[in-house]
């Protein structure tokens, strides 16, 4: 019997545990939700308690993209580029009505949901969501990571624009 087999599965669990407790979010705050996400980071709600403390503003240093705010058609190529630049493993939280579905902006210049261009793991409802809802979303994502939940939406994702 090879010792490695048993060891690998435990190592997997260990890595998952470590990953879930050290999320490095990159806040992509474009609008109102961005301000509310700052509140979550701020002194009262303090996201650091969930092991998601170090907000990084560089996609190379982050593993969690928090899309907080409206994504317009003009912004879509930019956010796709940012997502592409993040290193594996990477996760996406879509925070608020606008990012999730376009919200009440059923309008000519608003992307009707960020999942049209990048794969989303967790949707947080609200306009903007309360900080408690954001924390619930982060915890939901942590459960997904801990259980190594399959993520077909991400595995099947293709870069939506022509590569230049």
């Amino acid at each position, binding site marked *: 019997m090879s010792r490695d087999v048993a060891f690998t599965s435990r190592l997997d669990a260990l890595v998952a545990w470590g990953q879930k407790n050290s999320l490095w979010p990159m806040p*992509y*705050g*474009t*609008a*109102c939700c*961005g*301000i*509310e996400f*700052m*509140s979550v980071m*701020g*002194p*009262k709600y303090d996201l650091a308690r969930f092991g998601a403390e170090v907000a990084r*503003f560089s996609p190379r240093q982050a593993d969690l993209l928090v899309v907080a*705010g*409206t994504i*317009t*058609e*003009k*912004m*879509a*190529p*930019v*956010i796709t580029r*940012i997502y592409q630049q993040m290193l594996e493993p990477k996760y996406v939280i879509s925070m608020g009505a*606008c990012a999730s579905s376009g919200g*009440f*902006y*059923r*309008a*000519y*210049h*608003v*992307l*009707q949901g960020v999942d049209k261009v990048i794969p989303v793991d967790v949707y947080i409802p609200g*306009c*903007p969501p*309360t900080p408690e809802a954001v924390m619930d979303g982060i915890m939901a994502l942590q459960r997904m990571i801990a259980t190594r939940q399959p993520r077909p939406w991400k595995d099947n994702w293709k870069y939506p*624009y*022509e590569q*230049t």
Partner: protein
Amino acid sequence: MNKLETLKQNLAGKFKIENYKFIHAVGDDVLEVPKEDVPALLLFLRENGHFDFLMDVCGVDFPNREKRFDVVYHLFSSKDASRLRVKAQVGENESIGTVLPAWKGADWFEREAYDMFGIKFEGHPNLRRILTHHQFVGHPLRKDYDANLQQPCTSSLPIHFNNEPGSPGDVLNDKYVPLNIGPAHTAMHGTLRVMAEMDGETIVRCNNEIGYLHRCFEKMAETHPYNQVIPYTDRLNYCSAPMNNIGYCKAVERLLGVEIPPKAQAMRVILAELSRIIDHTIAIGTGAMDLGALTSFFYMFGLREQVYGLFEKLCGARLTVSMTRVGGMAQDAPEGWFDEVLALCKEIRKGTDEMASMVLDNKIFILRTKNVCPVSAQDAIQWGYTGPLLRASGVNLDLRKAKPYYGYDALDFDVPVGTTGDIYDRYLVRFEEMRQSVRIIEQVCKNVPGGDYTIRDKGIVLPEKKDVYGNIEGLMNHFMLIIKGLRPPVGEVYDATEAANGELGFYLVSDGSANPYRLKVRPPCFAIYQSYPTVVKGAMLADAIATVASMNLIAGELDR
């Protein structure tokens, strides 16, 4: 009426005033002129008529008319706070002369009118799209453009600069390094894009691009009933949402010709001043953060959370409150709310002083901001600055004093004015305004008038729930108002309030139906941000970041 008569005399002999129409509409002075006269007339009005501010330029579309568009210029005089609206009709394939020689600030306003309506401004050096993306086809605010017709964008524009007259255009210079900052960058607040050409650390040329958060506010307003526009106004300036509610409702109320009861006025003043405080906390907190100080952010958000707590008690929401309704407030304040506001005032005062000593007395902060990118009073007026930035440049103009509303004239407060208009002055003014706001809130809270929190006009305000469920008349009123909507008379109005960042104006055209025919917002930072490339030219890159922060740009109202 007097003012129009004087204007008529001033213009007589110089222009063919027999072709002009002098109208006095809903308290506004309006001048309808042929389009050929516009550039000369506006230049004359600026130089001789004391109208020193160009607040806004916008278009209105009337598809069934022979000359399809109205181009509307909103003028303002800082001497006596009077306003004048100049309107000219332009056909589909015609163009109108630019007013750039009179005001530098006309640049983006005219570009926006071109983008939204396709109105061509002759002589404008850089008439390109500004809010919609570069692959966009058509002009979205025309009545025949479907609000829901999205057009995907597949690429971003490369680094580009304005085609200034005399310069070789968008060609990059080999000697310098082109540098792109944003739109996804911390210092650019998520949605701003700045492109600079660098000589070492110095900015040789600079250009900014906006439109990354163009959420079609104006089109949405056109397709929704009056009261349903209120949540959209929340999301214009999401740092001080109640102020936008108030500004919008005030415009609609003026068009309807109703006055809200004293208690609603007092509540609106308190809400507005509280939002001014939290808006300034964000401006200062994130501003200091952009300069590398993280502590200020935590301090400021501590204060802000407490104000959020009060908003939550008042209406259940934190950030986007939608607390006002046309005709008053949505509901009364809960028991003891005003006492809690008074208690919080003490905390805010203490917090402001602590914060001020931490930021303003900090040597690094002083060195980074003093005499950095100053804006002279003359330039500020030319660009159309309003609010704290204008006052930092040394112009004493505050709509709360110049044209008081909601009983501001009965309150005792000062308007802080700076001297040089550098970044340090802007923060000084903001801190002092926070202190003055606390003074105002305390005065109002100590004697809140009794009475109703809203008017009870059946055609404007929904009946109370106990009437809706309790008697047939209330039920019918509710149904009628929900189905028919509130309908202001045919007409138009421009109404402005002093928001946290400057003059927030709403230009509202009503055709008598349940939706606004046209709603144009005059956001304060749109006029301010267009001056950015000029202000930071020749400065260091780090100073450019400090300038963005001090301008307190809120993308929601910048792009709408």
